[in-house]
């Protein structure tokens, strides 16, 4: 019997496969395709303090082996989440983790405080790839002192497992990882999207309404793997890896690089049942390589 279970801080996952925020809605939308009870966990769409309409269309551009998005964190705000969405998703037979976004430290704290009260949410994932409107739009996750500040402000009031999701658009991912651990992060997840642009050569215009957007998909996997590898050597907290995972082999690569669990994102758009295929593929790998417990794979590069 292969042991697929994973313990990350206080989180108990039945297997290492989770879904990434912004790619799986709130879980419900996938019910035609996936039995959510089979997943290690789902990270739901970012929740902000107030309703956010998000950016103007066009919000996406297909790129080589990936896509750019500038959705702009569209969501109806934390109060709507608590009243309308939480009652529907709280009893899913998997870890339901809430991604928290904000444009000010106060907003992150306000949202985290409210989610803290939700009994069935075992953890939050802090999305620090948001621009800080009080500091000219500087992204929290690209400035170590801002990253510490927002993490520790949330740490003060959030009592359960605090995951901080790192932005890759930095010079030293190790520095950012150490900063959020200093701020009190229990777990680090990475990477968020890479900043990029797509241009329509015929119209001579950028394709996205916001000009720049976040790159995801297989194109970013080598960068994501490198960062997971660097971070897992730099800090002692467990790491959740993501970035272009399309199949079980990709997932295992992230684990070998140092990730205790993985998140599958963009791949869900192409095959909504990909997470199940990945779980099955990890099992096949373990049988082939006589791996008794997936924990053996974590940081298992020789």
């Amino acid at each position: 019997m292969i042991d697929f279970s994973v313990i990350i801080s206080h989180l108990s996952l039945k297997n290492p496969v989770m879904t990434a925020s912004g790619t799986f809605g709130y879980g419900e939308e996938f019910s035609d395709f996936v039995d959510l009870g089979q997943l290690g966990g789902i990270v739901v769409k970012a929740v902000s303090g107030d309703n956010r309409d998000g950016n103007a269309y066009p919000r996406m551009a297909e790129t080589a082996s990936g896509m750019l998005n500038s959705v702009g964190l569209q969501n109806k705000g934390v109060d709507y989440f608590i009243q309308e969405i939480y009652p529907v998703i709280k009893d899913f037979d998997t870890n339901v983790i809430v991604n928290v976004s904000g444009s000010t430290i106060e907003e992150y704290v306000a949202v985290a405080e409210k989610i803290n009260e939700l009994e069935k949410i075992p953890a939050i994932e802090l999305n620090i790839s948001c621009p800080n409107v009080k500091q000219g739009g500087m992204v929290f996750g690209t400035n170590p002192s801002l990253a510490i500040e927002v993490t520790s402000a949330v740490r003060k009031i959030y009592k359960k497992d605090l995951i901080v999701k790192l932005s890759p658009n930095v010079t030293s991912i190790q520095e950012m990882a150490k900063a959020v651990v200093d701020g009190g992060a229990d777990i680090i997840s990475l990477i968020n999207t890479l900043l990029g642009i797509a241009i329509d050569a015929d119209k001579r215009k950028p394709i996205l309404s916001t000009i720049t957007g976040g790159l995801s998909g297989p194109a970013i996997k080598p960068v994501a793997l490198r960062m997971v590898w660097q971070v897992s050597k730099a800090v002692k907290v467990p790491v959740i890896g993501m970035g272009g995972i399309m199949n079980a082999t990709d997932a295992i690569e992230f684990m070998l690089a140092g990730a205790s669990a993985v998140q599958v994102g963009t791949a869900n758009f192409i095959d909504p049942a990909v997470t199940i295929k990945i779980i099955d593929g990890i099992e096949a790998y373990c049988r082939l390589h006589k791996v008794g417990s997936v924990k053996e794979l974590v940081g298992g590069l020789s």
Partner: protein
Amino acid sequence: MKEKKVLHDLFVTENIHLNKRHFILELKAPGLLPQFLPGQFVQVLVKDSPSTFLRRPFSIHAIDPIKNTFRLLIQIKGEGTRHLSFLREGEKVNVMYPLGNSFTLPSGKNVLLVGGGCGVAPLLFLAGWLKEQNVKVTMLTGWKRKADIFEKEAYQQCGDLLVTTEDGSEGETGMVTGHSIFKSVKSFDRIYCCGPDRMMKAIAHIATRKGVECEVSLENTMACGFGVCLCCITPTTHGNQRVCLEGPVFNTKELTW
């Protein structure tokens, strides 16, 4: 009750090239197909195309419940559609369906369908469906020239066919928006429209000015196609709505283009 969305490998039963840029793909499911409604679409996975990544959305063009097949009308726009144009009978293609909402029945019995380019794709299905409900259909389609016009007989079976060509080689000269039918547009209970954005916006303005109900089918670019990624949104009177889920069909009164 919304039909469950599925992912299946379908068989190509026909690939009919209408001209250099348009072809019809007829697909057959292994099991029974759901009851598609006009306006709905499917998401097709393009295999072996190194430069494409996401699925491609196409409106249902026609259905054959007896053969258990449906047809897609596809315009070759880039690598993805070019790859699909090479599909041969018997080959498999992975499709997600049924997606989106559908056109609705008018309150009256006299309607005008307006299509431009591959916007005509969902309108043939719509025309046949309306005719079955005893609605009188007038179809207006716009083309560049006479040689481009395809499926004339199919449209004529559903109702009156009017045509515009930019070079005047058939029907009235110019764009659909300039057709003389719009002088008496108030005689229609509803307008249904699908085509390039600027064409739909122009038709929507005419409809609003003349007080005629109008439904359009939008073609925003999509990533997932089933309501999760929030990339395909269009602004409406009640916030951003997903073209793949709350659409692609919208009443023009709701749109704040």
